[in-house]
């Protein structure tokens, strides 16, 4: 088993309680940071660690922190993004429900570093039971003197507020999240200004993913350099991977970045391979929005090198032959899964979740869904395939927020890598729409 930063104590009975968490070294980072370190020193360690945003974009967290504007007399806010809604991703859900104090400890340390005195954890509304777990944990931490006024006698004050969402994927986009937190529709904002300058309540704000923040206690305790020593290249540290689909052991895994994809899928330590009697057909490696890759390209890059679970290796080859680590939502599909049907499903998702503010996304996502629905139900024609590619291209990059890209990529990549399957649907609709029909080109099976 590799090194565990976030999940080392996850199996300890009662770890969701303050007492047990504390017994296993919990809240030592708060003591160290608040008593022995200046806020800027904490920022420095996080910068040194090279930890990248775990929500999907992979932007270096320390750099994001250093952009935070610090005008006199204006409050600053830290907002934790727990709106996890990207299909295939459930790591934050898992982390928050099993070890809530880790996030709270991270929130205290991070808020201290950024000079925030009121911080928010925005959790998607569907996870109301997790919100209750977090609220209980916050009450425990407060009772123990780790939250509230004059924490540990250091003079530092912090209030934590858990905010429920209301059912909207788009609120995972940071500016939509801030709008939602202000009690508005989750419409992403035009940027600039960026949240670091004008975020929540028009004040400088940092928005970080749950997993990103959960890394900070370890970084404070062990130093940024120690964190940077883990992993490979610019992919430092460990990453939670949410594994789903047709594998023997789906679930959340903490991996050291750089594990070979093949090992991750087939080793018993991780996913244990594809379910018996079936074969790997395709993988969506970083949540539904990243390009889908056929088996041969997920295991090896186009150059024949082993593909690794890291930001750089997964994106090797660009979108032509590569994908992205994204949020780490690793969806594995065997040969029984219809890529066309799955693309329609994802398309329906993005159509459903588009906020409707800007025209390419509002109109384009619905259009793609309708065309794909026709194809899936045997009413497609050859023209539709190129039409889809073109519509996707016209959405991509032309929208206010990345949801447009997220909607375009799965369609573009599925047609890029599985065009023959799309053609099969439009040329042999009776065959393709039969229940249990499986399209099986030999070259993509491993």
């Amino acid at each position, binding site marked *: 088993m590799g090194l565990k930063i976030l999940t080392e104590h996850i199996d300890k009975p009662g770890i969701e309680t303050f007492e047990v968490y504390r017994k296993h070294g919990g809240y030592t980072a708060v003591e160290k940071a608040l008593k022995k370190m200046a806020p800027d020193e904490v920022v420095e360690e996080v910068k040194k660690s090279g930890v990248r945003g775990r929500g999907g974009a992979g932007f270096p967290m320390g750099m994001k922190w250093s952009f935070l504007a610090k005008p006199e007399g204006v409050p600053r806010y830290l907002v934790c993004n727990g709106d996890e809604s990207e299909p295939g991703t459930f790591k934050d859900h898992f982390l928050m429900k099993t070890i809530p104090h880790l996030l709270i400890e991270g929130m205290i340390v991070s808020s201290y570093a950024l000079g925030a005195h009121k911080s928010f954890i925005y959790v998607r509304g569907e996870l109301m039971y997790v919100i209750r777990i977090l609220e209980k944990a916050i009450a425990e931490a407060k009772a123990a003197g780790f939250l509230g006024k004059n924490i540990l006698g250091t003079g530092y004050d912090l209030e934590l507020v858990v905010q429920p969402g209301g059912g909207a994927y788009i609120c995972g986009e940071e500016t939509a999240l801030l709008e939602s937190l202000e009690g508005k529709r989750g419409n992403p904002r035009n940027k600039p200004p960026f949240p670091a300058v004008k975020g929540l309540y028009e004040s400088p704000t940092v928005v970080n993913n749950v997993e990103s923040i959960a890394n900070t206690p370890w970084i404070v305790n062990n130093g940024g350099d120690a964190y940077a020593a883990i992993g490979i290249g610019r992919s430092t540290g460990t990453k939670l991977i949410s594994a789903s689909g047709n594998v023997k052991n789906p679930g959340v895994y903490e991996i050291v970045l750089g594990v070979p994809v093949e090992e991750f899928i087939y080793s018993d330590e991780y996913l244990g391979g594809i379910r018996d009697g079936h074969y790997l057909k395709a993988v969506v490696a970083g949540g539904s929005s990243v390009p889908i890759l056929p088996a041969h390209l997920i295991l090896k890059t186009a150059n024949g090198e082993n593909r690794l679970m890291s930001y750089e290796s997964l994106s090797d080859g660009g979108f032509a032959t590569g994908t992205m680590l994204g949020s780490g939502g690793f969806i594995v599909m065997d040969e029984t899964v219809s890529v066309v049907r799955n693309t329609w499903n994802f398309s329906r998702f993005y159509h*459903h979740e588009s*906020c*409707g*503010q*800007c*025209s390419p996304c*509002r109109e384009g996502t*619905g*259009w793609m869904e309708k065309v794909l629905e026709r194809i899936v139900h045997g009413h497609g024609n050859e023209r539709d395939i190129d039409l889809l590619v073109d519509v996707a291209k016209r959405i991509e990059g*032309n929208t206010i927020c990345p949801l447009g890209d997220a909607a375009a990529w799965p369609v573009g990549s599925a047609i890029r890598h599985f065009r023959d399957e799309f053609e099969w649907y439009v040329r042999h609709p009776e065959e393709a729409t039969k229940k249990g029909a499986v399209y099986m080109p030999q070259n993509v099976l491993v």
Partner: protein
Amino acid sequence: MDAPQLIKVTIDGREVHVPPGTTILEAARQIGPEVAPPAMCYYKPLKGSGGKCRACLVKVTQGSEKDPRPMPKLVASCITGAQDGMVVENYTNPEVVNARNGVVEFLLINHPLDCPVCDQAGECHLQDFAYENGLATTRYEEERRTFDREDIGDKIQLHMNRCILCYRCVYTANQITDRRVHGVMYRGDHSEISTYIHQAIDNDFSGNVIDVCPVGALTDKTYRFKSRVWFSKPVDAHRDCDKCCGKVNLWYKGDEVIRVTARKNQWGEVEDFICNTCRFDKKQTADWVIEGPTKVSRASVISANKYGKNVIKKTGFGLEYAAHHYKPIDDTRPYDKNLKEIKQSEDYKALMEKNEAFFSKK
């Protein structure tokens, strides 16, 4: 105090000097309509508008003098600030032309295209936008989304089918009236302008939502089916009004005032909003002091009395478009060879001379 330092921006090869903080779109408007990007949601008098329709996307090929790197994506010119030394491509960039073409297509796929029965036809920004930037055909074969017509008050009718969700009417209600009762409900392509509980928009300034609406989604019920826009004559007029500026356009059909609207500038924007009394209740010539005929651009449908080739304001666009869509003639093809031969023949030369003589006499 020193005058603020101006910054230099180049748009489609033409330079303009503007104060820092000016958006690319406003800088382009200072040069003139031939380089100004179209705007379907941006509305200068309304704070916070813009960024949504993506009609005004442009390519920034040089970020600024200091940082000459190009911007990786097309940017919405209405909300992107110009920088000193910035170079922008608008109608001269094929990527922009293509993206804009896409925006037209997206805006039209769920639009009913009921222009023949729409009161807005002739002064509809979507018509102009599609005419200048779109294609004559559609690739959309799916069902269109439809909504029921809704009366929001006795003077305003909402045709949600035609709405392009520019949010202008929402900003207007927020910024011009004292209480907003309508808004955008639901989300995605189910979004609709509505009051949710079917109530009237009852406010002295509510009529302004009609003027800011770029399409025929919000129309004046007192003007409904009275005339086509291009058969009526606009006249500048004013009156002393205790609620608003009282400066309006009266729209005449014969001797009858069939409609009163606020005055719009060159970009179709109202700068002085008017009250409902002026708009709906003062429809006699005697109510007004007439200033004279409204200046209407010669290219406008209203001047031309119809849609025609004059309506295309941006001649450059047509050429650009043609250049991208037509392949150069391949001289190796046999009929071209024939043409070459014909052109060299004596008969042809004689014919040309004759033509030349004829036209030079005229």
